């Protein structure tokens, strides 16, 4: 009876709030557009077709890894081994492609095995965290050390080249459009499909309150393992992109990507506590990180200040994203 009185003037605010609740990535989108404009202002060529192609080529891997991270974050978990999985899959496919002669079938076979390895690593994480009930942060840190060791075992030193067929495809064009754009479109479709999967809703419900989800009759352990499996699979896909962009095997290549993937997830508006977020945001978050790094250079920051300015800019973007998102939803 009360609330009806005050309804009229707040309708517009209400709509904004609803938009931010439904699309948690709106703050990220705003930041991204601003960064694109600034990059274009300081270095017009960076937002040209070629510039954007380069951006996507370089950051497609981080986008995929951030997507991977998002699925575990949905359920309130985290995966500190995502980067190590990238390294492992990267060296596995490069070594296999080399051993099998580098032909078309060798490439496809190696990709298949690589994705299975990613999936397997994800399942191992899932079992450690969900079935054995170890705390996600520390358990996946332990598995990350294990996976990194395994990668080192598979390829003891960085530098094995990937077959030209592989990276020329990744870096090439078809009908005048770079391959990575096809990949990006495919990714969008896959993510659209995944968002409609029961698993996505279930992961988010688990993230909101695992005990409640369990009591509702959801197979919480299985759902969390599936989340990690999905994470491993997407980390495997990220490894394919890394391999495409770097054309070689490197047992250390993914190590630093883990923390960036977490930052991207947060920039994208997902809550690390689980239950709330969107993979779209994580994709935008990955691009934001890339654009911040190049903008810091394009505005002419002296070299010794670049790391600091990047760090500050990312911190501010993280804080702004969290605060704006919350204010807008409240």
């Amino acid at each position, binding site marked *: 009876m009360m609330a009806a009185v005050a309804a009229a003037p707040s309708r517009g605010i209400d709509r904004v709030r609803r938009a931010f609740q439904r699309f948690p990535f709106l703050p990220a989108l705003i930041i991204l557009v601003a960064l694109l404009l600034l990059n274009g202002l300081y270095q017009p060529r960076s937002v040209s077709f070629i510039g954007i192609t380069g951006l996507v080529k370089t950051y497609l891997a981080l986008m995929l890894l951030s997507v991977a991270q998002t699925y575990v974050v949905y359920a309130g978990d985290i995966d500190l081994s995502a980067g190590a999985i990238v390294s492992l899959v990267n060296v596995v496919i490069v070594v296999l492609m080399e051993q099998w002669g580098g032909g078309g079938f060798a490439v496809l076979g190696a990709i298949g095995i690589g994705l299975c390895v990613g999936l397997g690593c994800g399942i191992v994480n899932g079992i450690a965290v969900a079935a054995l*009930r170890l705390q996600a942060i520390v358990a996946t840190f*332990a598995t990350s050390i294990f996976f990194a060791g395994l990668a080192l075992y598979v390829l003891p030193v960085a530098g094995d080249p990937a077959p030209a067929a592989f990276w020329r495809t990744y870096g090439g064009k078809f009908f005048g459009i770079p391959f990575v754009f096809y990949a990006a479109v495919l990714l969008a479709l896959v993510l659209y499909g995944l968002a409609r999967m029961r698993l996505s809703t279930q992961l988010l419900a688990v993230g909101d309150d695992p005990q409640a989800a369990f009591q509702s009759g959801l197979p919480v352990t299985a759902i969390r393992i599936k989340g990690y499996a999905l994470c491993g699979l997407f980390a495997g896909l990220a490894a394919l992109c890394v391999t495409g962009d770097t054309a070689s095997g490197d047992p250390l290549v993914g190590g630093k990507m883990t923390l960036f993937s977490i930052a991207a997830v947060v920039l994208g508006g997902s809550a690390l506590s689980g239950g709330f977020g969107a993979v779209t945001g994580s994709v935008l978050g990955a691009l934001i990180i890339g654009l911040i790094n190049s903008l810091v250079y394009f505005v002419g920051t002296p070299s010794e200040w670049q790391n600091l300015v990047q*760090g500050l800019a990312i*911190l501010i973007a993280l804080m702004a994203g969290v605060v704006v998102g919350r204010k807008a939803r409240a």
Partner: protein
Amino acid sequence: MTAPLDLARQPFLVASALIVALLAVGEAISPGFAAPQQILRLLIVAALLGIVAAGQNLVILGGREGIDLSVGGVVSLSAIVAGNLMNGADAGIPLAVVACLATGALFGIANGLGVTLLRIPPLVMTLGMLGVLQGLLVVVRQGIPSGRAAPALSEFVTRSLLLGVPGIIWLWLLIGIVMVLLLTRTVFGHRIYAIGSNERAAYMTGVPVKRVRIALFTLSGMFSAIAGVCLLGYSGSSFANVGELYILPSIIAVVLGGTPLSGGKGGYPGTMAGALLLVILQSILTTVNIAESGRQMVFGAALLVLMLFYGRGRAMRA
């Protein structure tokens, strides 16, 4: 008597038992591993980690997904600041220690303000802060005189101070006692557990939630700063990024010590044992002559197994 001790005791015993077991393994693999002198050296290394883990422990106890990833940056920065200020002279030590504590406190307060006033999740806030600190390191290193430790500091960390035991181990012991008293015998300690268990209820009973949490992050920064100074003494000269190694191990030490990342329960004695456990494990692996890939795999697997001893969460269906 009071519960914090009760809760801390059990994991402490588990970790201690594991320490003894690991020492036995080490001694079996390479005779001399568990010799008193070597154990003292391991304790020095464990003390460095343990001091960082003290701050980490406090932040984690405070709940609300408390975690401090910026400890690594603070350790590095403090080692460099201390090195420059003392510049190899004993007279510079007091100033260096004060400056480092202030630096650590400053970044801790910044973390705390971000976490409380802006309500940024601690993982995010401190991850961002770590990036800032790493950038700052590059800037600070420009045009500095030197990064040498004062001789007295090096002595304190590596040479015997009392009863054949180096000063840093005494310092660690002191920190351990202070931490236990702080957590069990002070109002502040009770408040830490209260906000870690149910922040809202704490707020409704008059606990200054934000101030307590800011204080926790501040203390974490200060402990990291102390560790940074000690690390300078340990290695004799400052160099970049020394602290990065402490970020995740400090968290693992806390968890192996029986403080869950969800906060609100646990204590420091377990963390001390956890830190020592971690250092012993690493040392054993160094002395075993296998390829690095093997060492890493064994280390990762061993950590998982160790966590099974007490790091496990509650079953959904009790």
